[in-house]
């Protein structure tokens, strides 16, 4: 998407090389577009930079202790390699990092560094938290060319300011991540989903709330409105347990959901495909819509916000996270419907991120929700504290930062 194809590329193989590259760039003012697997270039504002700084050769798992539920890897390590390695020991990244290749029509291998830098999570986020909740350590090179670490490899650590959280979701604007460490969980031996058909948005959010407010530890709650993925609306709830516990809890949840309709049970493989598609935004990814938004909403206002947006423009959307996340495809080409979307979402107490749109639209329209002046001042100050010359992914999140 961004015009990075003809730029000079730097591909350091060690953290020290990365630090040298950035230190040298400081002398000449060379700016960098940071790249991992290159599968999410369309996420964020287009970056105009002098060169590409790739983590491609910063690769490999550096620590994996299954008994300690922890993995560390260099930032360019393919996510698939990490997931396969963990699966061999029956473990996984808890937050179900989503693959956006279908969304962006991109190729290549998503890297673990991008999962951290972009705080990429999936449907299980509603139960266990996001990437930021499981990232426990980072090493990065800041815009001064200094190698900086924060956090570590232990589960509980409050030593010093939490620069781990600050780096997670900073989209490479604060530093080049060189190594990341995540907490892990055991994989559940079995999973199943319950499906209720025919609910409207408000009814579905209510049903999902009821399930998520049960003691049964629902690990996915999504709603596909009518006409999106078939003629009828489907509301999906996932459980991941041992087989005995799964049967028990599915039974209890079906009873609990009785007032909302008859829940049908879907087994392992079919359930996995459903949730993979939801994580990958498959119901909208192939849409010809010019713009796709990701809305983060309070559950109690989500259905109303979507009614407001739909009454103003053509919109196709689905809910994840029990209504807390909405993926929305809209038709307006010029501003991606930003004024309508942002107004409705602000009324609802949420935020909107423009996830997919042509470069020129993402240059004109704020990709991330605009911040008030005091928070923008802090954001700019933090950026300057890491990267005083604005060399790393300049303007990726906000113009001028």
């Amino acid at each position, binding site marked *: 998407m961004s015009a990075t194809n003809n730029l000079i590329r730097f591909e350091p193989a060690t953290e020290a090389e990365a630090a040298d590259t950035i230190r040298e760039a400081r002398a000449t003012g060379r700016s960098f577009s940071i790249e991992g697997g290159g599968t999410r270039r369309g996420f964020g504002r287009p970056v105009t930079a002098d060169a590409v700084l790739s983590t491609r050769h910063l690769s490999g798992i550096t620590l994996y*202790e299954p*008994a*300690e*539920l*922890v993995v560390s890897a260099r930032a360019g390590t393919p996510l698939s390699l990490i997931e396969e390695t963990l699966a061999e020991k029956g473990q996984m990244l808890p937050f179900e990092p989503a693959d956006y290749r279908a969304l962006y029509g991109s190729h290549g291998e998503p890297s673990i560094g991008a999962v951290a830098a972009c*705080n990429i999570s999936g449907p299980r*986020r*509603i139960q266990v938290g*996001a990437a*930021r*909740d499981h990232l426990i350590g980072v090493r990065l090179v800041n815009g001064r060319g*200094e190698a*900086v*670490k924060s956090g*570590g*490899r*232990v*589960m*509980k*650590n*409050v*030593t*010093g*300011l*939490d*620069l781990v*959280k*600050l780096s*997670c*979701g900073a989209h490479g604007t604060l530093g080049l991540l060189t190594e990341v460490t995540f907490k892990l969980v*055991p*994989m559940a031996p079995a999973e199943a989903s319950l499906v209720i058909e025919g609910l409207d948005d408000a009814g579905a959010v*209510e049903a999902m709330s009821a399930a*998520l*407010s*049960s*003691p049964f530890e629902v690990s996915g709650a999504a709603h596909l409105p009518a006409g999106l993925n078939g003629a009828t609306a489907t509301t999906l709830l996932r459980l991941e347990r*041992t087989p*005995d*516990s799964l049967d*028990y809890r599915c039974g209890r949840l079906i009873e609990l959901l009785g007032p909302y309709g008859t829940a049908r049970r879907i087994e392992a493989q079919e359930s996995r495909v459903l949730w993979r598609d939801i994580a990958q935004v498959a119901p909208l990814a192939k849409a010809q819509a010019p713009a796709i938004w990701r809305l983060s909403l*309070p*559950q*109690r206002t989500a259905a109303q916000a979507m009614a407001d947006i739909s009454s103003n423009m053509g919109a196709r959307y689905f809910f994840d996270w029990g209504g807390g*996340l909405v993926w929305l495809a809209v038709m307006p080409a010029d501003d991606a419907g930003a004024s309508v979307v942002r107004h409705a979402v602000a009324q609802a*107490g*949420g*935020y909107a991120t423009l996830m997919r749109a042509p470069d020129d639209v993402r240059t004109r329209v704020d990709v*991330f929700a605009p*911040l*008030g002046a*005091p*928070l923008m001042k802090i*954001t700019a*100050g*933090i950026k*300057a*504290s*890491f990267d005083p010359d604005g060399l790393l992914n300049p303007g990726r999140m*906000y113009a001028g930062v």
Partner: protein
Amino acid sequence: MSILFPIPDQDILERRDEIVAGLGALLPPECLVTTLDERRAFETDALTAYRHIPLAVALPRSTEEVAAVLRYCHEHNVFVVARGAGTSLSGGAIPQEDAIVLGLSKLNKILDINFPGRTMRVQSGVTNLSITEAVSAEGYFYAPDPSSQLACTIGGNIAMNSGGAHCLKYGVTTNYILGLRLVLMDCTVVELGGEALDSPGLDLLGLMIGSEGQLGIVTEATVRILRAAEAARPVLFGFETSEAAGACVAAIVGAGIIPVAMEFMDKEAIAICEAFAKAGYPLDVGAMLIIEVEGSVAEMDVQLKRIVDIAHQHGVQVVKESRSALETALIWKGRKSAFGATGRIADYICMDGTVPTGQLSYVLKRTAEICAGYGLRVANVFHAGDGNMHPLILYNVNDPAECEKAEQAGMDILRLCVEAGGCLTGEHGVGIEKRDLMHHQFTPDDLNQQMRVRAVFDPQWLLNPAKVFPLEGRVAA
């Protein structure tokens, strides 16, 4: 004792009357503590060996009053030390003579409970336990449960990113805060996050949590609450040695089982806690684990059977299940009052290093050797599942030589934790206690980056200035 405070700023001390009068114009008399006797109540926290009487104590009742106090202090260059309930074990709330204490105890209201969305909005001075108590009748709870939860405030939990016994499964404070109202040092009021799961821009919410009162003053928080499991059951496992207990913990996790809690006590801690709580702890074992499982009765039975099987492979000597709600309460009472119960028999300092769980046996052994080397007793009670250790070093606070030894032993133990691949503090914070050890865990570049971020929020270093960062070599934005 060897931890230094900055030399009080003579100029501020000389302006005390003027500062008290200035604050008096902003707050009614019942919200301002000025007499020496009353200020003395705020001279320390749970790290009682260090005491400094503040200039004055402001007890604002609203975000606006917090902002007014900060505006005054910002304009008049007065240091500010925030205080929740003063239960910090690392000295995070200890004032200094040239600072005012900003106490948040009057901000003690629960503002909103949203059951369908499973969130609550509370003021920062509400206690941790009162959040759970407000929703427990409906079957919900607030997950992070530090042992001091009866007294400690959510504001203090946010400052220290507090954990608790159940964070093995549920995580710590930072995983449960969705939004904050924050007053910056320049008196600007900002909202971070809200009821939605994500917030825009940099993760300032994540940065705030665990920042030890150095970036701003939190006045309100939106917290996530959870529906409680159908039931929970703690089980006591007694082992001959600490090593056997440690190996059992690793084997349980390795088998893919994550109990809600796995708490460790050594022989000394068992004796201290049993004498206090009469919880039925086994006294003839070398180490004990409290392992709690959750779910339906049948689910708990299945999971417990797997755990008991693993424990037998590690030579468990005693297995004792809770048979009633009363027994469960006593088992947890014993564990959660470990620090208080220890305080009945001796003065103590409580360490808080975290180590990789594979290093637990080694670190326990070395901890015993270190304390023996100083001629001191030590009791160990800690969160075994996540490697967060709490050696309690017993000493006599009235014996200066013993104080010195206890502090030295503590520092040796923390250095050991870092060398074993862990960190200085898992949930209590750096405060003053570990401030001078920060160079042991961090390089100058690491620390300078943290300090530059800190200075973005408070360029004059007015907020809790004696804490976290070594006094020498501080940097600006």
